């Protein structure tokens, strides 16, 4: 990789790169994204390497381990180009057949293609799969086709073109105007207008200025930012460099959760490549502009997703938030003006500059522009990452893209926004999703987690889950959050143990009012959303726990009873081996019995039983 000395040099390099590449060369693109890695994508890629070698195809066929292909339900996914054939549930055993049939003979391996669960119709090509049809990928556009460790791949798809335009044709003010005009709002949750944030920072007369990329994706159930950092790291860097040029920053930091080791190493490599080729460092592309980026690893604290807490931890302190104003744009890292945006926001910037603010502003709704990436998970058939224009309805996302609920179960709720969001019931399925509409029904956009729940989820348990999560993660600095969460958790535990009273619901709402009014940071202020939304939309479920001592979803342990059906039990003793407290007894090949006094209701026997003989009531 050369060091680009000028814009023309870069342009010429790209021209030569494109001339060298043959669009018809066969490519095997193995997904190594967050969904496929745990299902063995490394083994699949290794099998391809070996098989291509064996067949003398190693030089002819390009093999890449890419970022997320989107449809995680079909992990491990493989994309074959140029035909755009997608295979799913691929294991290393399938590889010889794919090489033989598809790569050598040009045929489709039927048994590995997508099959519609309802119509049984097969779809071998990406464009025919319903999951991809309603999507508009901007941030995810390159993820399934580039090798995230190759700068050439990024350049070949127009990478660093936005930076080129920003440095060559635009003044800092023009860039901020463009971002402002595009209507881009922060994708981390709050939805603050990005252009306005940059302007505030630019106008502060203080030096040096800093840029931070918030990659502390802590919301459980969300993995958009992980997929982007791992799958298209240069897009994040390019966005940050453009932002730094616009506000006049000389140093940037990417704050990544330590739970994402692959994201850290991919970004590190991308930074080194960018330095080597002159996109980072002194005198970027000979424009006279200096800027460099460092990675800062998080140390495992959810509250550090909050910008002031994040900044404190980067300064070497514990991650406690501080009251705003002053906002980081005025006084941030080391007391200096700092623009902090999340990963997806930064990844949108290069395309906005490249294709223009008008292009972006034409996508989405009146107040929410562009697209949003969601991690669609939970009880839907087609789980994965989706990117849709703002204003797409929940129904479209859950049913058209997600293929409806597993086993055609009844939809109960969709949870958005992580622990700071709420549970949205079926009556709002036709709600167009944007920042403001989600807020109007008691949830938030958050970073983009979208967890679909069916009737097997208990909403009291869901509320308790989030409150317990936040209770563990609250930094403890301010009383409303620290004590409020503790009291709400105590009440929820009473309800779950069958000791709840109806007055408890009002009491929790009262605590919520105090917390949202008086907490210092977003963690405490929005911690009330899981409670408020579940009480408002699922009051009956709370009442069933309180009045009837029943959890109809069969989730809340203390209200359950596990028994063995003597008719179905084969006496295989799988449950006996699993039971941690020795509560199950009986002779081999005879029906077993659970001692209710000893049973801790952990459910291990239920899961271990292959014959569905363990019953819950």
């Amino acid at each position, binding site marked *: 990789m050369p060091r680009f000395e000028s814009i023309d040099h870069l342009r010429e390099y790209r021209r030569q790169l494109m001339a060298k590449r043959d669009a018809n060369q066969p490519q095997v693109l193995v997904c190594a994204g*967050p*969904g496929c*890695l*745990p*299902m063995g994508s490394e083994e699949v890629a290794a099998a391809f390497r070996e098989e291509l070698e064996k067949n003398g195809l190693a030089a002819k066929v390009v093999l890449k381990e890419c970022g997320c292909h989107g449809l*995680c*339900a079909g*992990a491990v996914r493989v994309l074959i180009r140029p035909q755009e054939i997608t295979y799913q549930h691929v294991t290393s055993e399938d590889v010889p057949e794919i090489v033989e049939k598809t790569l050598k003979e040009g045929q489709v391996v039927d048994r590995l293609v997508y099959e519609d669960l309802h119509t049984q119709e097969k779809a071998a090509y990406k464009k025919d799969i319903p999951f991809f049809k309603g999507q508009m990928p901007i941030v995810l556009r390159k993820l399934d086709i580039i090798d995230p460790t190759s700068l050439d791949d990024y350049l070949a798809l127009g990478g660093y073109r936005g930076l080129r335009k920003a440095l060559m044709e635009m003044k800092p003010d023009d860039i901020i105007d463009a971002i402002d005009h595009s209507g881009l709002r922060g994708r981390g949750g709050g939805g603050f207008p990005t252009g306005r944030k940059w302007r505030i920072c630019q106008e502060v007369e203080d030096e040096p200025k800093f840029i931070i990329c918030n990659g502390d*994706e*802590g*919301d*459980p*159930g*969300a*993995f958009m930012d*992980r997929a982007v950092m791992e799958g298209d790291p240069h897009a994040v860097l390019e966005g940050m460099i453009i932002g730094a040029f616009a506000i006049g920053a000389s140093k940037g930091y990417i704050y990544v959760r*330590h*739970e*994402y*080791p692959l994201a850290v190493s991919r970004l590190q490599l991308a930074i080194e490549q960018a330095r080597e080729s002159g996109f980072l460092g002194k005198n970027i592309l000979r424009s006279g502009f200096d800027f460099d980026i460092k990675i*800062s*690893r998080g*140390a*495992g*604290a*959810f509250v550090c997703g909050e910008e002031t807490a994040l900044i404190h*931890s*980067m*300064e*070497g*302190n*514990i*991650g406690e938030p501080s009251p705003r104003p002053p906002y980081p744009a005025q006084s941030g890292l*080391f007391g200096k003006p700092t623009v902090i945006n999340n990963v997806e926001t930064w990844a949108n910037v290069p395309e906005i500059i490249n294709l223009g603010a008008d292009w972006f502003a034409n996508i989405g709704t009146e107040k929410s522009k562009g697209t949003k990436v969601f*991690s669609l*998970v*939970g*009880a839907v058939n087609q*789980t*994965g990452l989706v990117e849709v224009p703002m204003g797409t309805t929940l129904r479209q996302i859950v049913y058209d893209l997600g293929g409806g609920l597993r086993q055609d179960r009844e939809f109960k709720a969709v*949870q958005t926004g*992580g622990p700071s969001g709420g549970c949205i019931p079926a009556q709002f399925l036709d709600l167009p999703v944007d920042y403001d509409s989600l807020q109007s029904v008691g949830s938030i956009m958050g970073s983009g*987690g979208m*967890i679909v*729940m069916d009737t097997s*989820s208990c909403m009291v348990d*869901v509320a308790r*889950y*989030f409150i317990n*999560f936040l209770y563990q*993660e609250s*930094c403890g600095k301010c009383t409303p959050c620290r004590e409020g969460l503790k009291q709400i958790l105590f009440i929820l535990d009473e309800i779950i143990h069958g000791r709840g009273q109806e007055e408890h619901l009002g009491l929790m709402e009262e605590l919520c009012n105090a917390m949202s009014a008086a907490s210092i940071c977003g963690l405490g202020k929005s911690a009330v959303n899981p409670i408020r939304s579940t009480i408002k939309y699922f009051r009956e479920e709370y009442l069933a726990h309180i009045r009837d001592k029943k959890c109809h979803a069969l989730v809340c342990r203390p209200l359950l009873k596990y028994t063995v059906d003597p008719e179905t039990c084969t006496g295989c003793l799988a449950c006996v081996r*699993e039971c*941690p407290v020795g509560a199950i007894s009986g002779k081999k090949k005879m029906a077993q019995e659970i001692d209710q006094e000893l049973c801790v209701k*952990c*459910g*291990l026997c239920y*899961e*271990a039983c292959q014959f569905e003989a363990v019953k819950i009531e």
Partner: protein
Amino acid sequence: MDLPRLETILSRYEGESADLIPVLQDIQDAYSYLPKEELHVVSERLQVPLTQIYSVATFFKMFSLIPKGKHQIKVCTGTTCHLKGSHRVAESLSHRLGVEVGYTTKDMQFSLDTVGCLGSCAQAPVMMVDDKYFGRTTVDKVPKILKLYK
């Protein structure tokens, strides 16, 4: 105390107080915990009081003041994993290893922890052993996974 090992870590940084967390992270990675004697040296070098180091070390979840096992098991308890019964996976591991969540086995082979979210939600429940992910980990898969590391 293994001073040369610590020096290698410290030499990567400029010795400013803002380097505290990265230095502690490197020590945690290299030693699998934060040894007391090493922290005294860090305190002197970075000019950060030991009380602040203690405060940081106990605030963030990645740090441990006691040695961790050879293999680190992390069970995801993110929302999707929770809904799909990750607590049962954690309980099964705890039962099989004979150790509570948050602790290390006597033979120092395994540390068992739960984490907020590993970001592989589509394959819930997910667990990690060291840097390797395991998806759709039902209770019956637990013994097979453990066997890989025994």
